[in-house]
């Protein structure tokens, strides 16, 4: 027993951090998928998209969503930061280790950490743009039909990948699941959500081109 250990014998905090990480992660996966289904309303036409956006603004659902995303991303970030190897030596070790043992789920965790870090920046930009510009099919179409197309393509793939790997890991760690069938199911789901997102982006792009 060491002094610092003696002070922290009631180690509830370590369980709490784990729960915050898992629960916030699951909430964010739910948010992302709902969000992408709502965005896909553009497939039904600009009218449907604007109607939905208007409905959400009218009943302050948009404000609620922004508040939710800031809090949940903040909590998730705070909890997962302790997982990212912080020291240079640790970084070298994990990358070399992944290369040596050639293990798929070890690589996917490294990509999970990389996409997570990158997304912090992308989420901040995305939330700012939406909050200051508002939601409207014309505005979105204009944005997609500009250099920001690349921003959204990268963001879409990263977010869906991160969500899928994160969900897989949470279920594998806690649940009664068959790992390999779970992986297959999640791969199909991820491909579908990415395709749905790409379809929405394509519709926005052609809308932006026709104006």
């Amino acid at each position, binding site marked *: 027993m060491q002094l610092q250990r003696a002070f922290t014998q009631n*180690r*509830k905090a370590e369980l709490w951090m*784990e729960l915050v990480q898992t629960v916030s992660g699951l909430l964010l996966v739910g948010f992302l998928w709902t969000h992408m289904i709502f965005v896909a309303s553009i497939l039904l036409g600009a009218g449907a998209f604007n109607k939905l956006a208007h409905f959400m603004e009218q009943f302050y659902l948009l404000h609620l969503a922004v508040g939710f995303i800031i809090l949940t991303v903040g909590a998730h970030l705070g909890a997962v930061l302790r997982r990212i190897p912080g020291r240079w030596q640790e970084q070298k070790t994990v990358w070399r*280790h992944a290369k040596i*043992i050639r*293990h798929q789920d070890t690589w996917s965790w490294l990509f999970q950490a990389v996409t997570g870090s990158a997304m912090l920046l992308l989420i901040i930009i995305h939330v700012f743009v939406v909050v200051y510009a508002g939601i409207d099919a014309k505005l979105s179409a204009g944005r997609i039909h500009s250099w920001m197309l690349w921003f959204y393509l990268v963001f879409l793939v990263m977010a869906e990948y991160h969500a899928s790997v994160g969900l897989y890991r949470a279920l594998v*760690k*806690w*649940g009664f699941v068959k790992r390999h069938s779970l992986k297959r199911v999640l791969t199909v789901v991820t491909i579908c959500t990415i395709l749905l997102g790409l379809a929405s982006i394509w519709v926005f792009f052609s809308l932006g081109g026709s104006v």
Partner: protein
Amino acid sequence: MSQRQLTFHIFRYNPETPKSKPDMQVFMLPEEPGMTLFIALNKIREEQDPTLAFDFVCRAGICGSCGMLINGKPTLACKTLTKNLPAEITLMPLPVFKLLGDLSVDTGTWFRDVSLRTEAWVHTNKTFDPMAEEERMSNETALQIYEAERCIECGCCIGGCATANIKPDFIGAAGVNRVGRFMIDPRDERDEQAYYDVVGSEDGIFGCIGLMACDDNCPIGIPLREQLAYVRRKMAVAGWKR
């Protein structure tokens, strides 16, 4: 079938000679029918380089001394047939454990330390009466205990674990599996809070980030994912009640 020529790239390093640098040495060996890495390494040592250090005892997958990275995969050399490998074979010692030289590591010190820290023995206040009839245990429970007890402490789950590679105090799948074994044992009188004291932490079950290299690499196929999830759920309930 024509005989294959195997090319071994073997990690060479002796920590006892401070000036030496780690490198990969190449050995050529003709493949033989039914050849395992146990046979191949002994042939290399007998015929080509008597200084090559590696560990084997039982050569039957029971003692757990020959765990190493075979083309990167942590597994037992004695159970690995060369016919299941490509002609180019890379051998490295298991990470995490103290490197004694070449392919030989000290797993014993690590496992003893984890056993002590997790108090991996039956805790009971009953005094043993040699004349009394043994207490009965259901066959199902006995089989569950046996499943976890099959661990031969080869260290493949630990060597393959990225977390164990960067956190020296992390007890890994072998440590968690060992504690899980006592949790189901009715002879152990510890309550869940006593288990939480030894594994409910970042060095224990909450340090696991779910990379599952342990589950993929256990050479004797202990369902480590199930064991980890079982202990995690138990400890979450115990921690919640604290």
